[in-house]
């Protein structure tokens, strides 16, 4: 704590008044303040951002050099593949469709989920636990959100890996190969 006292750059006398007399040539514009918790964007932030870009591009480039993007036979309306699957990010929807009337699984639930997501900050208004991963004060919120994530990802996993011909359930190792 004694350090804190050292940081008072310009101790003021309570008996005097002070006015700004002159601007001096210095390297810092920090007047009347000790070290703060900020760093200059350049180079600290920008250089890291550049590094991240390079990392992202390298990863994407490696994947692209190793694996070709899928391209099946030309579209043929008279020849439905079995199973016919939506893109993976919509497989959760397709999975829900297989249980319910398409409207409930495919339109109603996703719309409600999106609206609830947008409204989350207006329900959860406490200012506790901001900026901390898995803050203990936010157990309930985190739990609810985790349920949502597990459901969303779980349904996609089921649709992608466990659904075979005729939308039947199979274990991945029993999955019949498509003709």
């Amino acid at each position, binding site marked *: 704590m004694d350090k804190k006292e050292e940081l008072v750059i310009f101790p003021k006398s309570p008996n005097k008044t002070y006015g700004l007399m002159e601007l001096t040539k210095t390297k810092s514009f920090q007047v009347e303040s000790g070290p703060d918790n900020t760093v200059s964007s350049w180079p600290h932030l920008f*250089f*890291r951002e*550049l*590094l991240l870009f*390079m*990392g992202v*591009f*390298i990863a994407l*480039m*490696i994947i692209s*050099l190793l694996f070709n993007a899928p*391209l*099946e*036979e030309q579209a043929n309306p008279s*020849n439905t*593949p*079995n199973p016919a699957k939506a893109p993976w990010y919509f497989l959760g929807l397709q999975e829900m469709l297989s249980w319910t009337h398409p409207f409930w699984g495919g339109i109603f639930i996703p719309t409600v989920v999106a609206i609830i997501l947008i409204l989350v900050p207006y329900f959860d208004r406490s200012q506790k636990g901001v900026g901390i991963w898995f803050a203990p004060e936010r157990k309930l919120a985190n739990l609810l959100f985790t349920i949502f994530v597990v459901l969303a990802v779980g349904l996609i996993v089921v649709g992608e890996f466990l659904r075979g011909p005729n939308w039947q359930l199979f274990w991945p190792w029993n999955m019949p190969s*498509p*003709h």
Partner: protein
Amino acid sequence: MTYKLFFIFGLTFAVLFGIAAYQNDKREWKKYQTDYFKMELKKATTTEEKASIKFANEIKQIMVPDLKRVDRCTTCHMGVDNPKFGDENKIYKTHPNLDQHPFEKFGCTVCHKGQGRATTVKAAHGKAGFWEEPMWEKEYIQVSCGKCHSGQEVKGAPLLSFGRKLFAEKGCAGCHKIEGVSAGNIGPELTTVGSKYKHEFDYTRVKGEHTVANWIYEHFKDPQAVTPGTIMPNMNLTDEEAKALTIYMLSLTKEKIPYEYRAGKKG
């Protein structure tokens, strides 16, 4: 640490772009073209001929808009229209009877099948992922003759002709309908059986390769074994007869060949 990472990433960038450029430049077909030019140079007799051979790599293609085809087969098979290459191995060999089927008019895949636009060996021959039409092998090429040549006897296609003859002789016409040939209505219609997709057949009882050709072949050899409960009798066909009939069946396609491409029509 940050700078070390920057150094590593920078070098990785250079390496990856190098690989991409290399991969793009080194295409399979270039090797075949270069080999062809070398052989051509060896065969050239006069200095003039030798001077005219340029080692220029480029994709060659035959466009046949009438048949909706673009065939790049001649990118590698460069000797097909060069009469000097009659004795070369099959990659460069001169194509027989070019005057009857000039490929600037017909293209290649209309008879041979395979993937005309592809420029890699595997994909072009229809053997790489998601291509419904692999190249016909050996005598199965006769299937394609049947698309345009409609007579009983097709010169150069003995198995196809034999198959057509067998269809009439073995009484197939009594049960099966083929538009313009027979009118049976007991068995399934066969007018476009050659256009059926691979996945429309049940291969659980097929012993050999899971191809349409093999399904039909095994079905001819023993109908009950491939489709239990069928009323189609076992005709005790020999291997040759079954193959001939298979070729005939496969030649019955939906494909619409324009008038001027069909046999016996001048144009």
